[in-house]
């Protein structure tokens, strides 16, 4: 399977971009060793020999801040992705396999939370909690962004419901949980990996959106928080591009690389799309 993935150019390009960003966030803080919150420079210094990406409105090293911020954003994306996938899987599998009234109720809830924007619920919860760690933001994003996965998993589970091996399992007296776990889950596994990649990307987006509004984590630094500080300090009007272009660029690159990986995998697992 790894061999097939390697042969997909789209997947590999995405994977390499993501790998570079990931190693930057893991290695640069060790390499530099400094405290990202130390305000040792002047305000809004342009990139120079000492500060490769200049300083922000607090006189902090942007490059060092960026490495910590990207790490937080990836962490929030991954944690929220895991939560969203688990909820989406449970809801989708039960709705699709069990069907009937349970399906109608679960589908109603899923549809409702796609129409009521998750972003609004994210705001409502975040504004009510005074001190928010990155993990809390991740949890809230995870708990609001599962409907997409649930919809897709439900569709897959419904189509599997009437397969022969499911009937055999039923006749053999397997419990519902056992059938879902052993007979359906393996069939949707490749799909789950792809859905996780999309949830990861959307988690990073949601984090940067909510942080730009000023309702992100209240401690530490994330890419969205850097954008928020930059806009609050009116950096665009001053022309201090180094305080917002690199952070925006990393968000864009991460999401682009994840989408590329997703399309690459889709082409492998979905032979209809292969050209």
């Amino acid at each position: 399977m790894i061999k097939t993935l390697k042969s997909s150019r789209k997947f590999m390009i995405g994977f390499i971009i993501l790998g570079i960003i990931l190693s930057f966030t893991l290695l640069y803080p060790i390499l530099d060793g400094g405290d990202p919150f130390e305000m040792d420079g002047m305000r809004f210094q342009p990139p120079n020999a000492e500060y490769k990406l200049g300083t922000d409105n607090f006189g902090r090293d942007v490059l060092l801040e960026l490495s910590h911020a990207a790490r937080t954003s990836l962490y929030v994306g991954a944690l929220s992705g895991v939560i969203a996938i688990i909820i989406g899987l449970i809801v989708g599998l039960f709705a699709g396999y069990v069907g009937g009234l349970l399906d109608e109720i679960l589908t109603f809830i899923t549809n409702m939370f796609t129409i009521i924007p998750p972003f609004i619920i994210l705001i409502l919860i975040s504004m009510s909690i005074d001190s928010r760690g990155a993990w809390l933001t991740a949890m809230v994003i995870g708990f609001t962004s599962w409907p997409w996965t649930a919809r897709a998993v439900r569709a897959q589970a419904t189509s599997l419901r009437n397969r022969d091996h499911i009937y055999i399992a039923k006749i053999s007296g397997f419990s519902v949980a056992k059938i879902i776990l052993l007979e359906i889950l393996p069939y949707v596994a490749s799909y789950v990996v792809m859905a996780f990649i999309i949830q990861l990307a959307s988690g990073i987006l949601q984090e940067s959106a909510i942080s730009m509004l000023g309702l992100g984590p209240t401690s530490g630094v994330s890419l969205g928080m850097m954008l928020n500080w930059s806009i609050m300090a009116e950096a665009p009007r001053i022309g201090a591009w180094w305080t917002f272009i690199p952070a925006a660029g990393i968000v864009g690159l991460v999401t682009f690389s994840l989408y590329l990986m997703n399309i690459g995998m889709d082409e492998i697992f979905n032979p209809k799309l292969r050209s």
Partner: protein
Amino acid sequence: MSNYFKYFLKKFGWYMLTFVIAIALNFALPRLIDGNPVDTIMARISKGMTDSNSIKNMYDNFLREFRLDLPIWQQFLYYFTGVFRGDLGTSFGQYPREVTDIIRNALPWTIALQLPAIITGWLLGNILGAFAAYKKGVFDKVIFPMALFISSIPFFIFSILLLYGFAIVAEIFPTSGSYAYGMDIEFSIPFILSAIRHHTLPFLSIVLVMIGGQGIGMREMSIYELNADYVKYSKLMGIRESKIIKYVFRNAMLPQITGLVLSLGTVIAGGLITEIVFSYQGLGTVMFEAIRGRDYPLISGCTLIVTVTILISSFLLDIIYGFIDPRIKAAQTEDN
């Protein structure tokens, strides 16, 4: 009873229920987590205040303002009917301005930005997507990867890039605001020109990303439809190509309407953040300022208006969808 009417009733019922639950969430979430909102507000406001008498007075005022002296179901009823009475409370940050008054001033700017951008982006994206699927060749090979790149970047990140390129480096467009500083809002040519100039970059950032996303979806749908049996059969029958294209386009477009309904929340939320990037004076910027100033009534007023707007637009789109989709008119009334 016609099928369309049944479809309409079913959708109407569904949206009414969702509407009530959405308002209930707006009402309940901050209260559930915070307990009593007045305590939180007072804890912040009364920091440093020593006169216990005036603290007590303020507390009672806020208690009445939030109707916290009433039982919870009456509070909710009051909140719920407030949506229809146009009463969303009083702003803390811009006291004593009414929340509805602030929103009324901001909402037209947001609508003027988002409505044309979403419609233009959706239409252009679908036309380009269908064109790419039909023409194939260079057009498809160049446009498709570009669309993929653009659509994978969120609006507000794209707006930051546009801001940098066209307002800071090239200085073609202004960096912030909705019209030139010091101008009065009036119906005059200089004002309209200034508003359009300020409108361009935020508008473009929504339109371009929309085109990318919609174009990719439409291309996929069109390719799928072009390979369908009915197209081959129609060709064998000798039906004119323009007529076949019309069928293909209509069939491919229907899921795109559903797609728009499902993504509307994300699109509108992204548009609100775009406003912040350009300090465009719509709802997004109002919300940003409200969060900065911890102006709770204003924040929840904004979330409520955004939720209601999204629900109404989704409902309208679903109604139009039922009108266009021949299957609903013909027989089925199932949920889509």
